[in-house]
């Protein structure tokens, strides 16, 4: 028995003394505001206060808090958010919210002994908590302004779009009430753990599973138990991944069996003697191994280990480059990049009648439903996905993780089941950014006009297809950057290896390609003798000019973005020159890079459907099925819907994603939710408004208001009141409702990649200022000035948060992130930026309206990451002459490149 107080209340818990405090708080005391991200003290999500000091609850045996006072996030907010928590909301300091309780508690510890901390003090106090979404800037702002007052605007009808509205779903996140994948309990649930292959390539056979299971009081499930088709994939045509491998493991960490049992039994269970015999094979661990002639094939139908190649060709690039006045070429290699969301995959399954319910973190509820149903041999009506709050995704939570495994156990046992990945399991089993080996050549004429570009890239797609086809198709479309390239040839191949599955990660291969293309543009500008920004401006895409796919675009904002950087560019060049002239041992540099990115699926259908209804009681409900994984869809889409309907946004009640309740809004991927689901919301809200106006026989300018179950319409002197209770029930429990679907118009690409792959593009450019330590090769990014064209800024607060967060991830990709299977499956060997690594970010939000986007809006989520790495690389080269041919630019690689440049 251990006695201590938690949030002022005495607790006596009867648990083993060496149990983690985090586990005791969550499982014994039901205080799930304390999050577990790593169980290693690497992420700080479990930060609580003990006698006022911040500690990691995951590293603290409960015995050590005996007689002491423990405080958790639940203890802060008695009646509502505290001033600190309000500051987090006001400043947009919470996105997915999984790190927020840890951040808030670390900040609370600081503020109790230092009521007016400076930025450095905040960084030190929060340095032990990782955030993967925000880029930290807004968190720092919030803590510095913890004593401040006020809340974000609550705009009146018609004024939501453009307002810095606080996240509509934010209060639960800052107060620790948000329920993520691991946060909903069902005490009777079977706990599931997976048996995973320790080898990258091996065949296997099981021994006596029944005997092993019986002796331990557990159940074991293998591929043989799967009632449906043991093969899933995010793109049906390429589906190739078993939920449980059958006889052959193609990657380390592949699940081959499940063990399910009661919590106590599972906690003590050892897997060391699990009856499986492995026959180890030689794995292909690199693109070179996989492409070697005679290499063993991973999938029979893909004879040369090539999953797919994507091609875009336009003009005659051979002639263009042969005749070009200036040509540069270069190569770049990038490694696996881990998404490193702070929430490991987790979920719960249970039966309701004959319907299997799964509550897990996800970016794609309907895809989860359809794939899980297929694996389990169920009609889709018998699977209901009720997504948990999702603690970051960035692309990897598009693929199935726990869903089919939970579903299998619950379906076959009839019992609820729960599965929570450990940090290392999450890193082993989840998808990665594709490693790339790329080569490109770019040419320009004497005046600095681009004449042609060749791009060729191999992308390591790992053991299964996942999003490999998307990467292979997207990269050639985007590898030109947002520039006019009349002669162009680009090919990207997705190649199978026995490495981790490479899937979707913010940008689908485009960040890798841009990192090469933008470096070459700098070299080309230098060779021509042009200013690097001027070179980009000269070649920037413009309205009406065709892209490399032959698509003529409208609302092209890249020129405006580059223009917005001009004054900082001029100033930074001067200040850098001054610094370098007066400083030894360090050099500063300035780099710029651009991005463009098509929103939504590439030349494929991509619809979203939104429903909005008004109940007889007068509640306006938006069925918002577009998963908000922190990026802000819940708020942004509500803002669009509110203005389209003509009511205040805070009057709209959100109905969260649930495949039984919300129509299909597709996946939270490809920067499509604002554009596609947002437009569906605008259409649905507009349709509802039209119904109301028609009912009242009012013109389109009428003002609508809703109060006390009465809709009031006013147009000039005319006024109509509609008592909602007197209207007949229509459908879905509403008296008035509308549902609309939007599918962005695209055209299929021909064999040369010519067509209209996307209906809407977004644009951006970033300017990085760095300082390089010439003797150690370390790089400090001092400042990033970012200009992004959003078409129409729906919510500036959230848009800045996307930019700052994308820059932090881009910085990580540029300087420190490199996943090595078997070596970096934790958050201390795999490094993501901490609060001390992010630069000052200045955002310019540009509005060049898109004719297709909702109210002119464009996507932003992935765009923001693309220019960061190349801008940093270009700044390093500007400072030192060093050309990096491999990412990340670790200190040893930078130093070697500096030395190579000097010799």
């Amino acid at each position, binding site marked *: 028995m251990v006695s201590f107080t938690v949030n002022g209340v005495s607790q006596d818990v009867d648990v083993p*003394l*060496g*149990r*983690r405090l985090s586990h005791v708080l969550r499982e014994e005391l039901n205080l799930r505001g304390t999050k577990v991200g790593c169980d290693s003290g690497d992420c700080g999500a479990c930060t609580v206060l003990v006698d006022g000091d911040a500690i990691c609850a995951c590293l603290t*045996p409960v015995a050590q808090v005996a007689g002491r006072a423990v405080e958790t996030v639940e203890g802060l907010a008695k009646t509502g958010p505290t001033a600190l928590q309000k500051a987090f909301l006001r400043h947009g300091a919470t996105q997915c919210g999984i790190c927020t309780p840890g951040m808030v508690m670390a900040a609370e510890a600081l503020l109790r002994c230092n009521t007016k901390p400076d930025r450095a003090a905040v960084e*030190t106090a929060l340095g032990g*908590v990782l955030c993967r979404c925000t880029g930290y800037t807004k968190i720092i702002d919030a803590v510095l302004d913890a004593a401040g007052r006020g809340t974000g605007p609550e705009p009146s009808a018609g004024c939501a779009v453009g307002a810095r509205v606080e996240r509509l779903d934010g209060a639960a996140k800052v107060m620790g009430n948000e329920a993520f994948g691991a946060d909903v309990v069902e005490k009777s649930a079977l706990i599931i753990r997976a048996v995973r292959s320790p080898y990258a390539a091996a065949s296997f056979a099981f021994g006596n599973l029944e005997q092993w299971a019986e002796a331990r009081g557990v159940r074991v499930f293998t591929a043989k138990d799967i009632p449906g088709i043991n093969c899933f994939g995010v793109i049906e045509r390429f589906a190739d991944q078993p939920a449980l491998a059958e006889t052959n493991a193609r990657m380390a960490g592949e699940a081959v069996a499940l063990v399910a049992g009661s919590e106590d039994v599972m906690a003590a269970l050892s897997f060391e003697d699990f009856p499986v015999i492995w026959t180890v094979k030689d794995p292909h661990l690199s693109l070179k191994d996989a492409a070697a002639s005679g290499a063993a094939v991973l999938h029979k139908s893909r004879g040369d280990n090539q999953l797919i190649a994507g091609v875009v060709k336009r003009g005659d690039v051979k002639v263009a480059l042969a005749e070009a006045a200036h040509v540069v070429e270069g190569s770049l290699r990038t490694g696996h990049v881990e998404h490193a969301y702070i929430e490991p995959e987790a979920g719960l399954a249970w039966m309701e009648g004959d319907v299997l319910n799964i509550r897990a973190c996800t970016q794609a509820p309907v895809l989860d439903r359809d794939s899980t149903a297929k694996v389990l041999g169920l009609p889709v009506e018998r699977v209901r996905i009720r997504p948990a709050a999702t603690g970051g995704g960035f692309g990897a939570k598009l693929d199935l993780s726990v869903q089919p495994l939970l579903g299998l156990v619950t379906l076959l046992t009839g019992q609820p089941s729960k599965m929570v990945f450990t940090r290392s399991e999450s890193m082993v089993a989840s998808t990665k950014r594709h490693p790339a080996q790329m080569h490109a050549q770019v040419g320009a004429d004497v005046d600095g006009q681009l004449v042609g570009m060749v791009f060729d890239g191999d992308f390591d797609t790992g053991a299964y297809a996942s999003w490999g086809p998307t990467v292979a198709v997207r990269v050639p479309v985007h590898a030109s950057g947002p520039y006019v390239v009349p002669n162009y040839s680009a090919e990207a191949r997705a190649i199978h290896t026995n490495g981790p599955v490479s899937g979707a990660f913010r940008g689908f291969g485009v960040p890798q390609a841009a990192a090469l293309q933008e470096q070459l543009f700098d070299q080309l500008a230098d060779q021509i003798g042009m200013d690097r920004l001027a070179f980009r401006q000269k070649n920037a895409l413009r309205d009406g000019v065709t892209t490399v796919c032959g698509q003529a675009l409208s609302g092209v904002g890249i020129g405006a973005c580059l223009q917005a950087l001009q004054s900082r560019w001029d100033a930074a060049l001067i200040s850098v020159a001054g610094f370098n002239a007066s400083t030894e041992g360090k050099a500063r540099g300035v780099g710029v890079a651009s991005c463009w990115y098509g929103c939504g699926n590439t030349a494929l259908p991509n619809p979203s459907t939104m429903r909005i209804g008004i109940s007889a009681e007068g509640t306006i409900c938006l069925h918002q099925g577009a998963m908000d994984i922190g990026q802000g869809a819940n708020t942004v889409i509500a803002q669009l819907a509110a203005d389209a309907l003509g009511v205040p946004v805070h009057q709209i009640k959100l109905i969260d994603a649930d495949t039984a309740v919300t129509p299909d809004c597709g996946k939270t991927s490809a920067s499509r939710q604002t554009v596609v689901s947002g437009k569906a919301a605008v259409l649905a809200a507009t349709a509802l408004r039209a119904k109301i106006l028609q009912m009242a026989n009012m013109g389109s300018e009428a003002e609508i208001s809703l109060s006390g179950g009465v809709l009031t319409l006013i147009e000039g002197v005319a006024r109509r009141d509609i008592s909602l209770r007197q209207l007949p029930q229509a459908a879905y429990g509403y008296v008035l409702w509308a549902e609309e679907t939007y599918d962005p118009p695209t055209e299929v690409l021909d064999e040369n990649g010519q067509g209209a792959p996307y209906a809407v593009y977004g644009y951006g450019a970033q300017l990085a200022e760095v300082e390089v330590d010439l003797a150690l090769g370390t790089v400090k990014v001092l400042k990033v000035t970012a200009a992004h064209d959003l078409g129409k800024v729906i919510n500036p607060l959230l848009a800045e948060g996307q930019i700052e967060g994308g820059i932090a991830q881009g910085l990580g990709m540029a300087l420190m992130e490199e996943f090595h299977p078997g070596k970096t499956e934790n958050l*201390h060997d795999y490094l993501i930026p901490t609060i001390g690594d992010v630069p000052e970010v200045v955002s310019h939000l540009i509005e060049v309206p898109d004719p297709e986007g909702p109210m002119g809006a464009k996507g932003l989520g992935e765009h923001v990451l693309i220019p960061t790495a190349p801008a940093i690389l270009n700044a390093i080269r500007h400072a030192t002459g060093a050309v990096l041919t491999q990412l990340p630019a670790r200190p040893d690689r930078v130093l070697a490149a500096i030395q190579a440049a000097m010799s």
Partner: protein
Amino acid sequence: MGIYHRPDKLKDALAVLASSGARPVAGCTDVFATTEAQELAGDVLDLTDIAELRGVSETAECWRIGATTTWREVRFADLPSAFDMLVEAAREVGGVQVQNTGTVAGNICNASPAADGMPPLLALDAQIELVSAHGVRQVPLAAYVTGPRQSIRHTDELVSAILVPKARAVGRSRFLKLGARKHLVISIAMVAVRLDVVAGQIREAAVAVGACGPVAQRATAVEKALVGADIEGADQLVRSVFLQEVLAPISDVRSDAGYRREAAVELVRRAVRQLAGEI
């Protein structure tokens, strides 16, 4: 399931050790980081309730850092400037959360090649005090850690304190840690340098390098070159060859070995230069 002992008397702890193979633990920041289990396995001897093992104190001969003294306590202890390098290390170990519970002695006992406490304590000629039911013994820190995760501690002994002889707690010191990010980083290389300078001349020099071999090492050849020299320009005396014999770096996910060799030299030069600048 093992037994979790948490005595409040040292003699009781020693009795536990004498009669069982219990694993001594303090802040648990390292032991929990190496398991996915929700509780510590096996017999555990938790030392954190033993008052006599906690805190920094001073005797006639030495400074004493009790076994359960946390990094935070070291950071705020009233120590002479020879300890600056240890205090600087204390600021860079993990985040605030780990500094609040992790102990200096635990950092040494965990015997990681990248233990932040090793270079500063080596450069202070620290001694490790080991107690058992049979008595007390002291061994030099340099002899205590014998390899990655290895020490000469007997299973019935525990580290009761780290002792720094006052005769060595002289001069000023500097700790430099090189990693690929700001916080929560395992070093690519790190150095601790202590210089006792009298009238512009280096009277005593202690230089230690970590994360560049299985165990952190003193660089005696560098020290020899520094002793007797003018502090002004002393960084020029730090020659690569003096360091290379004590370095045995590996290539890993953080860096290649060759870079570690170069970086260690540069860090020592910097530390010397920075100390020269302060004097």
